[in-house]
């Protein structure tokens, strides 16, 4: 399948559980497609070379950089952004509530990316400790918090999960 450079191509993906379509050139980054075509402006764009982590989303459940992914390469995939976390009920997810409780954000620019990394991380990690959480967070730059409150929020949710798993 070949897509020519100066033409706009239609692509369809699952955005936070809803099928959405839009058009773009092959060179359009997924981050820009989500923001400008689909209106998912919770995807923040910082460095556009994979370092800052602000644009992190999940594709098929796996956290990755939307600025280092072509929109056309995500055709047909299951994409989730921060908008999907508290969408229907308007009630914060457990992770978001923990961020709020621990003051794990100030300006909030880095927060959507960090939340999406945490969603994937917490779905896979088995009782993670501070070292694992900090290693995961090393893929994000936060200029406000100094990370301590973010680590506390993630560890609290991880402990809740472990508790629930051992109760079950």
């Amino acid at each position, binding site marked *: 399948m070949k*897509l020519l450079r100066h033409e706009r191509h239609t692509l369809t993906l699952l955005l936070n559980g809803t099928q959405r379509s839009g058009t773009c050139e092959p060179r359009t980054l997924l981050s820009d497609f989500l923001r400008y075509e689909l209106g998912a402006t919770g995807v923040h764009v910082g460095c556009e070379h994979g370092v800052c982590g602000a644009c*992190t989303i999940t594709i098929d459940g796996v956290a990755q950089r939307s600025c*280092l*992914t072509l929109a056309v390469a995500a055709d047909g995939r299951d994409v989730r952004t921060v908008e999907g976390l508290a969408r229907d009920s308007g009630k914060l997810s457990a992770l978001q509530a923990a961020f709020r409780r621990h003051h794990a954000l100030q300006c909030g620019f880095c927060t959507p990316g960090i939340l999406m990394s945490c969603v994937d991380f917490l779905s896979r990690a088995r009782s993670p400790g501070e070292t694992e959480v900090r*290693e995961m967070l090393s893929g994000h730059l936060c200029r406000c918090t100094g990370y301590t409150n973010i680590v506390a929020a993630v560890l609290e949710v991880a402990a809740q999960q472990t508790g629930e798993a051992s109760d079950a």
Partner: protein
Amino acid sequence: MKPAPFDYIRADSTEEVVQLLSEYGEDARILAGGQSLMAALNMRLTQARVLIDISRIEALSGISVSGNTLTVGAAVTQAALEKVVRDDNCVPLLALAFPHLGHFQTRNRGTVCGSIAYADASAELPLCLATLGGIVRLRSRRRRRTLAAREFFRGVLTTAREADELIESVQFPLAAARTRYGFEEVSMRHGDFALVALAGMVSHSETRLGVGGVADRPWVEALPCNGGAGLEDALERLAWQLGARDDQHASARYRRHLVRHMGKALITRLVIENAGQ
């Protein structure tokens, strides 16, 4: 920044990829995970007329063990290999190196073969492949060939791959009996490119040290087996031989210092561990 325009082709088979490569040659770039290529395209450090996306090709997505070799296909992500080597520790050096390799989020998408194709002199996977004496398997329409890692890496971001060749897979030797492995790295931030990365391997008959981040390619040196003063002299020679340079992050002098001191600490530890085995 945004990349300059290019055509995008999603290939469905390895045969289609090598056909396209023979057609487009140097105008084409292989897109697997894109964690190096997309960053370079975004910054316009490189441009391509055509990107060939191989990420959905099933035949390139396998990890397999046969004999004493672990084979990793061109579309296998770093996270997939990380899981395999962590679960059964079949290549201990890789398990030790993975936490230093980019970030959780980039390993999820970045591929093993992509990192080796990009051949950054400070990257961990090329260093591990070279230190272990691994192999790169190349395929074009004309031929298939295999190259030892030491023949494959040629210089700064430069490899022996020809324009019409695809890295179909790479092969890492499995853990050898009675051998200790170690990995150490110093970088500005966890997961950033290494100022100096060291991969050590010590058995009863051989001591090997791989150095990344200093020379123009991963460098592997045989060292005296017994540790002690002979080791210090050998590391002193090695530190100068690598041709370290100053850059905005570290001086050449500091890099030589790291090679000597981290090298001594790493090899000494592995020799002691191996003797106690």
